[in-house]
């Protein structure tokens, strides 16, 4: 990084890195969000295919769901640049619902 190089250049070639940046710059923000939502959904679906669905998978699904929900709230619903209280209501709802779902999943069953 001292030589102005991106840290990921240690893992991917600089040409590939530049190509990725070029493609991302051409795409608009909403398209990037859409692709992110597709990838996160696919990730959740693939986790669901696993036979032994562990505690870690549940955490990953909950985190993924939160990220997807927040992306929709911020970008599709366009609340990112709106008075905080309108965005906060939905974000708090999302955090509460996901946290409580997680809590009920991890509490010992009766």
């Amino acid at each position, binding site marked *: 990084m001292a030589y102005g190089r991106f840290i990921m250049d240690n893992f991917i070639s600089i040409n590939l890195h530049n190509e990725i940046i070029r493609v991302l710059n051409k795409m608009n923000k909403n398209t990037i969000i859409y692709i992110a939502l597709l990838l996160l959904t696919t990730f959740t679906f693939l986790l669901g295919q696993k036979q032994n*669905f562990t505690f870690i998978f549940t955490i990953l699904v909950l985190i993924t769901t939160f990220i997807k929900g927040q992306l929709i709230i911020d970008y599709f619903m*366009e609340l990112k640049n*709106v*008075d905080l209280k309108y965005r906060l209501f939905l974000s708090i709802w999302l955090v509460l619902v996901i946290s409580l779902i997680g809590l*009920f999943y991890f*509490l010992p069953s009766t």
Partner: protein
Amino acid sequence: MQKIIKKYPPGDFGIWIIIYIELITFGALFLGYAYSRRLDVELFNKSQLLLEQNFGFINTILLITSSYFIVKAIEIIKKDEKTNTFFVASNYIFGAISLGVVFLFLKIFEFVGKYQEGINLSTNKFFMFYFLLTMFHFLHVLLGVIILFNLYKKTKIGGYTKSNLMGLETGASYWHMVDLLWIILFPLIYIMK
């Protein structure tokens, strides 16, 4: 460049009251499901295996893509750079409607399939929640498709412009809410064990 913070969310404020109420209602149902699951985890896990995860996945992709098309329609009208702005925007809305209709047909196919297997609302607690949540959501998608159709008709004739987007944004906000609810419903009912 200073970020401009808007005073109100997009669309008519009335739809946001409806959105907040719907989110609270569905939130309570989601939590009801998660809590009830604790009382018989084995039953819920076994019953969940009878669901088709592939359908849930496809339906999630359909709704996300549909929401994206609505975002694109609004984006195009806001930019208003092309001579065929309304034509392109209305095509995106039509695309969103089509995907919504496919979602509805897939859900009907799923419901009929379950019914033919002898599974219904009173089979067990899991399926009570499954049918309650997904049918309630189905009705919201159906209403959303009707709303989008009206938006499509008006967009096609240039009824929405850069300075007059309120109706379109109102309908769009409702549709994104429907998508947001499914984003949680799909992993909760179909995936998490």
